[in-house]
């Protein structure tokens, strides 16, 4: 039953939803870009402050469970959304046409993500996933006058709809065989014996979620959408969307035993292998920075799949830490791309030649980018290394030598293109005119948040104990 207690546990979601409505009314009453940005940021902060309250609540709403995993997911989603809002404000100042709708779409997507992270029932899973994806089509195709953005929107829409159809069909098959929709019930119903239909349903669900996480056979859309979409939309796609979907997949594997069968475990191992290697191999000679970051995010989720394969307490902890390090690093990397290409001038500054010799023009921005790429490559003293260390520790603890070997090979290949990007920052630039971040980028809100994120990367890299303890407490509650 929906008691007051369970409503409190849903507080962050409710606050974000009300902010979306307030923004909608604001747009209807009087368009004011900075105001809208402030309101949405305020809403997100408020939601963030309400998370401890929600965590305290004992019961959770019928179709959802607000447990450690959900709390961790909500906090990360809200933080990423906050950084995206901060970065998109400066980006959108150059956009001719309605600017406030972007924040509206973003808030709706965040609501979906919060719902997805806490979902315990196939229906809420489906609804939240769609609530997350639908605004993304809009955000990606936001600057539709530029054909790349339109193309990205269309591609994402068509392929995401197909993936949702797969997911739905999978759910339907499982429902048809077990008659139960909630995960706990599913588990009991299937304890007898997983027959052909249920496994087929599980596989189809994996395909549907795999698309969203851009696991290799279903990853082809990622580079085009990352390149096409406007920078803030890409940040949101790369962080919040992947984060939420991965937590759901983790929950499915942890709770519902049909995902725990040995056969699916080998399937995930194979998927992890080809994703790690495929992601890195594709990015080797990529001249476009946004596509390169797309491939690198594919590879990183390949590493993370190891947690799904291993499962168990350590896996949840490893996922938590790895996601934190991945999010911080991706925010920094994409943040730099946003800074260099804002204010919006029709085309994002994605080509690597734009960043040649950046260090000698914007030393601190280049420093942020170097730190983020070092972290992507997993070099010590950066957050990325802690994440990689965790994943390798996981693989070794469970004696998954094939996976550990491919992590080592993948990161060795990955070094090549991360180093190539890093060194272009310091190369003496030929005389070519090139785009550049605005002179005062550092003093704007976006710039400041970017600096904070970069410092966070170093802090987590140097002293990860607090972050690890936080994740351990939350995952212990699972």
């Amino acid at each position: 039953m929906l008691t007051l207690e369970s409503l409190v546990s849903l507080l962050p979601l409710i606050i974000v939803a009300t902010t979306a409505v307030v923004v909608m009314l604001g747009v209807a009453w009087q368009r004011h870009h900075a105001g809208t940005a402030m309101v949405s940021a305020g809403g997100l902060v408020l939601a963030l402050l309400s998370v401890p309250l929600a965590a305290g609540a004992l019961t959770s709403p019928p179709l959802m469970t607000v447990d450690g995993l959900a709390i961790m997911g909500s906090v990360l989603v809200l933080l990423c959304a906050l950084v995206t809002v901060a970065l998109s404000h400066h980006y959108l100042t150059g956009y001719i046409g309605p600017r406030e709708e972007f924040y509206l779409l973003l808030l709706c997507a965040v609501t979906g993500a919060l719902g997805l992270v806490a979902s315990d029932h196939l229906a809420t899973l489906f609804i939240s996933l769609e609530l997350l994806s639908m605004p993304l089509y809009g955000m990606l195709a936001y600057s539709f006058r530029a054909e790349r953005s339109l193309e990205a929107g269309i591609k994402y829409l068509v392929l995401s709809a197909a993936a949702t159809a797969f997911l739905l069909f999978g759910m339907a098959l499982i429902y048809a065989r077990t008659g139960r929709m909630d995960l706990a019930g599913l588990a009991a119903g299937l304890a007898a014996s997983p027959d052909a239909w249920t496994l087929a349903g599980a596989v189809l669900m994996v395909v549907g979620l795999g698309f969203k996480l851009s696991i290799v056979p279903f990853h082809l859309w990622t580079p085009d959408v990352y390149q096409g979409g406007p920078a803030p939309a890409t940040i949101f796609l790369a962080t919040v969307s992947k984060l939420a979907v991965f937590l759901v997949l983790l929950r499915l594997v942890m709770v519902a035993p049909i995902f725990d069968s040995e056969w699916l475990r080998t399937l995930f191992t194979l998927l992890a292998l080809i994703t790690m290697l495929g992601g890195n191999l594709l990015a080797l000679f990529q001249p476009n920075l946004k596509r390169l970051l797309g491939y690198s995010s594919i590879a990183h989720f390949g590493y993370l799949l190891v947690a799904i394969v291993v499962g168990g307490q350590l896996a949840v902890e490893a996922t938590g830490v790895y996601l934190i390090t991945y999010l911080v690093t991706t925010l920094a990397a994409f943040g730099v791309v946003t800074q260099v290409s804002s204010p919006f001038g029709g085309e994002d500054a994605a080509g690597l030649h734009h960043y040649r010799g950046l260090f000698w023009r914007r030393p601190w921005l280049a420093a942020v980018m170097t730190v983020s790429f070092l972290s992507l490559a997993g070099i010590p003293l950066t957050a990325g290394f802690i994440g990689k260390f965790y994943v390798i520790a996981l693989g070794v603890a469970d004696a998954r030598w094939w996976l550990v070997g491919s992590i080592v090979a993948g990161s060795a290949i990955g070094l090549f293109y991360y180093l190539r990007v890093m060194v272009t920052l310091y190369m003496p630039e030929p005389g070519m005119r090139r785009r550049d971040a605005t002179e005062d980028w550092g003093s704007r809100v976006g710039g400041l948040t970017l600096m904070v994120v970069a410092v966070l990367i170093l802090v987590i890299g140097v002293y990860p104990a607090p972050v690890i303890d936080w994740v351990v407490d939350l995952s212990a509650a699972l």
Partner: protein
Amino acid sequence: MNGIPMEHGLILASILFSLGLAGLMLRRSMLFVLMSLEVMLNSAALAFVVGATAWSQPDGQAMFLLVITLAAAEASVGLALMIQLYQRYRSLDLDAASRMRG
């Protein structure tokens, strides 16, 4: 309940699903691609209904309603983008919008 056994319903839904998939892959024009997406979503909804009747629970029907609303939302956004596609490329061909590669 001696109606048609559940497997037949599921097989029908699967056939419908694969027809939608084929349409998605073969048709060039975006309009028909959106249509085949609808077919796939409806096939999933059908499977839900079949499941619901088999277990005589209302959950399946509720899911069917949700799927229909989603399909509608999907179609609206899809058509909006298709209009922009037409204005830009003067054609509905999905492959026209494929400049990003490599």
